[in-house]
């Protein structure tokens, strides 16, 4: 399983890098889709079908909206000129990437073997969760019973997003 996930992750990285450098914006959007749908397969391989369903639907809707935006405006990327400011920014970002790699490497050394990692809290949730919550699906039991505040926060985030879109895009109120 680790090999297949590694292959999919390499595909996702290649897709993300291509999306940054594509000349045609439509192909950049499609390359973004590689990242999303690769994540769907990763979720399925990691035995998280709940997340995979959400991810595949949200990815499709997002792609539709982004393709509509690209077809509506322009398909060509803006020309960017490289000046000293840009070179300094690139040097800073490379230093940051090197630092991140170093600290990730140090922290990965102290992790458990892939798949063997369980924390005490998760064990407390898993044992007897069906009797405690009455829900046969453990994920739903966790997100609506043990972690109810979390779910409320997520729903409020979506509500706020819709509110923000309605507020920013309306024309009539501005007159």
């Amino acid at each position, binding site marked *: 399983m680790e090999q297949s996930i590694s292959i999919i992750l390499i595909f996702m990285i290649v897709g993300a890098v291509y999306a940054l450098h594509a000349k045609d914006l439509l192909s950049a959007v499609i390359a973004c889709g590689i990242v999303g749908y690769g994540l769907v397969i990763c979720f399925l391989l990691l035995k998280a079908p709940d997340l995979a*369903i959400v991810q595949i639907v949200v990815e499709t*809707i997002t792609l539709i909206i982004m393709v509509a935006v690209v077809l509506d405006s322009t398909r060509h990327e803006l020309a960017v000129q490289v000046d000293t400011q840009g070179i300094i920014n690139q040097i800073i970002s490379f230093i940051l990437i090197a630092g991140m790699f170093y600290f990730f490497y140090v922290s990965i050394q102290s992790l458990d073997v892939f798949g063997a990692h369980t924390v005490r809290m998760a064990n407390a949730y898993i044992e007897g969760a069906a009797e405690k919550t009455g829900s046969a699906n453990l994920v739903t*039991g966790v997100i609506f019973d043990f972690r109810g505040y979390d779910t409320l926060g997520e729903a409020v985030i979506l509500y706020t997003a819709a509110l923000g879109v309605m507020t920013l895009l309306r024309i009539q109120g501005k007159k």
Partner: protein
Amino acid sequence: MEGMSIIVKKVTQLLCGIIFLYGIYIISHGHLTPGGGFAGGAIIAGSFILLILAFGSDALNLKKEVIESSITESIAILIVILIALAGFFFGIKVFFANYLPRGIVGELISAGAIPLYNIFIGLEVASAILTIFLALVIFKEESQT
């Protein structure tokens, strides 16, 4: 936005209801099988988006629907908070307490208040995504005219 060709319209007529039903299934069986409010709500919103993309914004009275979907969204999130708040008055007095009877694990009507949370979170997610999409469609046409 204009509608698409006759093939797309016909296939949409056949598929749209099935996608909508599948979303309802995912929501109502959220406590038994993978899925739940977020996934099912996104599927329901997807069925409406498919309908709007295929038939164009002229075929449906969208200006009325954006108001209704935002009202639905607000009412759904309010009901979720009210269900959670009702935990203060029954059984253990905790916010988000599961105060309804649990029933048998694996039955359709079981798990206390969790199916209610699923249904109203699903309603909220569906109408939120639909509101965002409708706002993008309608307000662009308003700015053009």
